[in-house]
C-alpha cells in the first residue's frame, strides 16, 4: 500500500473515467452545498484583494460595501511603508539556506536508514520524526539563553552573540524541519528498487557515489515536493524570528507582520494590500505547484 500510494501521489493522476450519472436530487443538494461552502471559503481572500484595489477616500465615503474607486496606489504605498523590499530580502536569506541544508541533511540520514539495516534504524527514525512534532515553545528557553550567551565578536554580529542573527534562525529551522523530511525521504527511498544500488556496488561505487549519483537523482520527485512544502513552511514561519531576532530591519516578511499592524491599522485598504503582498508568494506556489504541495503533505502525514 505504501509504495503504490506514494507513486500515485507523485505521478500526475490519470483522470478518472468520466461516467457522469444523471442528476439526482441528492446530487443537486450536494452541489449546492459545496458551491456555497466554496464561495464562503474563498471570500476572505477575495475581500482582501477587492478592497486592496480601492481608494481609501472612496471607501471611507461610500463604505466598503460599494463598487468603485479602483486604484493600484495602495500597493505602492503598502510596499514602501511595510518595507517589503527589505523583509522579502530577509526572508530569502533565511529560506534558501534553511531548505537546502534541511534537504541535504535529511537525505543523508534517509539514505542510510533506507539502504542499511542497522539495529538502531527504527530508533533513529523515531528520533527524527518526532522532533518536528514538539511545540516550538518547548525549545524556546534553552535556545534563547544559548544564543544570547554564545559570544561572537561585534565585527561578526551587532549583538555580540548569536542572538539577533540569521544563523540562529536558520539553524533552528533546519533542526526543526529535518525530522519531517527524513521521514518522507526514507519512505520514498525504500520504494526504490534495491537492484539499482547493488549493481553500482558491483561496479565498485562507494557509499558516497551511490548516495549522490544514483539514489538522489531518483528522489527528484520527492525532493521537489519537499522543497516546495518547506519553502512555504519556512516562509510562513512566524515564531523563530520573533523569538530570536530583535532588530526590525532584519525581520523576515511573516514575522514583521507583528510590526505592520500598527503601521496599517487605520487604513484598511492599505492593510488589505499589505496582506495580499504577503500572501502572493505562497499563493503563486499554490497555483503553480499545488501537486507538489499536496504530495509533500500527504506523503508525510498519511503514509500508509
Amino acid at each position, binding site marked *: 500500500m505504501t509504495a503504490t500510494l506514494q507513486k500515485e501521489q507523485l505521478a500526475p493522476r490519470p483522470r478518472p473515467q468520466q461516467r457522469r450519472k444523471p442528476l439526482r436530487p441528492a446530487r443537486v443538494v450536494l452541489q449546492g452545498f*459545496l458551491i456555497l461552502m466554496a464561495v464562503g471559503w474563498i471570500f476572505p481572500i477575495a475581500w482582501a484583494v477587492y478592497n486592496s484595489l480601492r481608494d481609501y477616500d472612496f471607501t471611507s465615503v461610500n463604505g*466598503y460595501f460599494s463598487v468603485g474607486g479602483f486604484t493600484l496606489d495602495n500597493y505602492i504605498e503598502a510596499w514602501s511603508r511595510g518595507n517589503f523590499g527589505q523583509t522579502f530580502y530577509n526572508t530569502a536569506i533565511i529560506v534558501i539556506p534553511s531548505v537546502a541544508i534541511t534537504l541535504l541533511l535529511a537525505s543523508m540520514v534517509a539514505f542510510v536508514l533506507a539502504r542499511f539495516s542497522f539495529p538502531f534504524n527504527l530508533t533513529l527514525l523515531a528520533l527524527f520524526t518526532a522532533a518536528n512534532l514538539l*511545540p516550538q515553545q518547548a525549545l524556546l*528557553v534553552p535556545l534563547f539563553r544559548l544564543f544570547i550567551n554564545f559570544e561572537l565578536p561585534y565585527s561578526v554580529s551587532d549583538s555580540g552573540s548569536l542572538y539577533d542573527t540569521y544563523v540562529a534562525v536558520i539553524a533552528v529551522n533546519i533542526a526543526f524541519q529535518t525530522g519531517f523530511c527524513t521521514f518522507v525521504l526514507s519512505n520514498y527511498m525504500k520504494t526504490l528498487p534495491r537492484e539499482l544500488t547493488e549493481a553500482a556496488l558491483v561496479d565498485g561505487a*562507494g*557509499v558516497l557515489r551511490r548516495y549522490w549519483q544514483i539514489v538522489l537523482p531518483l528522489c527528484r520527485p520527492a525532493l521537489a515536493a519537499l522543497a516546495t512544502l518547506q519553502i512555504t513552511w519556512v516562509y510562513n514561519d512566524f515564531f523563530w524570528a520573533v523569538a530570536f531576532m530583535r532588530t526590525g530591519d532584519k525581520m523576515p516578511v511573516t514575522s514583521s507582520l507583528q510590526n505592520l499592524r500598527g503601521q496599517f491599522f487605520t487604513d484598511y485598504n492599505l492593510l488589505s494590500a499589505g496582506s495580499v503582498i504577503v500572501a502572493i508568494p505562497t499563493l503563486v506556489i*499554490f497555483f503553480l505547484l499545488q501537486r507538489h504541495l499536496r504530495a509533500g503533505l500527504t506523503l508525510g502525514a498519511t503514509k500508509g
Partner: protein
Amino acid sequence: MRTLSGVDVLTVALMIAVPTVVVVGLVWGPALATVLLSFTDWNGIGSLGEINFVGWQNYEDATTNYPPFGPAIRHNILWLVVFFLGPTLLGIVLAVMLDRELRGSRIYQSIFFMPVVLSLALVGFIWQLIYSRDQGLLNEVLGLEGGARIDWFGNSDINLWAVLVAAGWRHTGYIMLLYLAGLKAVDPALREAAAVDGAGEVRTFLRVIWPVMRPVNIVILVITVIESLRAFDIAWVINKGRNGLELLSTLVTQNVIGEASRVGFGSALATIMIAISTVFIVIYLIQVMREQK
C-alpha cells in the same frame, strides 16, 4: 555491509552523525533542558553554577499564583474541542463528499486547500478586515452602528471564538487533504463488496471505510491535538496573547523573551506543553513505526 570499505564506514558514520548532532543539539537537548530548568529558580542572568533546585515550586506558582494560567488552559482545551467538532469534522465530511465522481471536485479541493498555504499570522490579518470594529465587514453586514459595534478580535468575551473561526478556516482544508489522500488509497473492491451486499452509502462509510482508515484517523487526531497546543501566531499578532487570548504558548513566550525573563517559571509552563504533546507523539510514533515493519 559486508562490502563496506574503511572510507565507506566513515562516510556512513558522518551521514548519520552530522544530522543527528543538529537535531539532538537543537531540538531534543533543549527540550530536555527545558524540563530540567523547570525545577530551578534560574533567572537567566547568573552563571549555571548558581542554579538552585526548587522542586515543584514553579508548577505550584503557575497553578496557584499566576492568574493567566487558568484561562490559558481553558482556552487551549476549548481550542482543541472546537477544532475537533468543527474544522476536523468538516474536513472529513468534505473529503468524503469530494472523493466521489463529482463535477468540479478538483476545483472544490483547490479552494478548500488554499488557506492552508497562508501563515496563521497572515490569516489573522486577513480576518481583521472582516472583524474590525470600525471598518470591518461583519459589523456592517449585521447593521451594527455606533456603540453597538463589536470589536471581534478585541472583546475578551468573544475574541477567542473569532480567532477559532479564522484558524478553523485554515485547518479544515488541511484535514480534508489528508483524509482525501487516505480515501483514495482505500481498495475499491471493499466498496464494491459493500454495494453488492446492499449497504447504503452511510452504512458503507461507517462499517467499511472508517475502520480501514484507522491509520489516517490516528494521524488526524494527533495533528489536531498538536496544532491546538501549538496555536500561537494568530494570538500573538492580534494582542500578544492577552485579554481573552491567553494560551500556554503565549504565556511561555511572554515569560521568556520579555524584559522580566523568568526562566524557571517559563520552563515549567513549557514542560506542561511537552508533557501533553509527548503523549500524542508516542501515539503517532507507535502508529507510524508499526507500518515501517
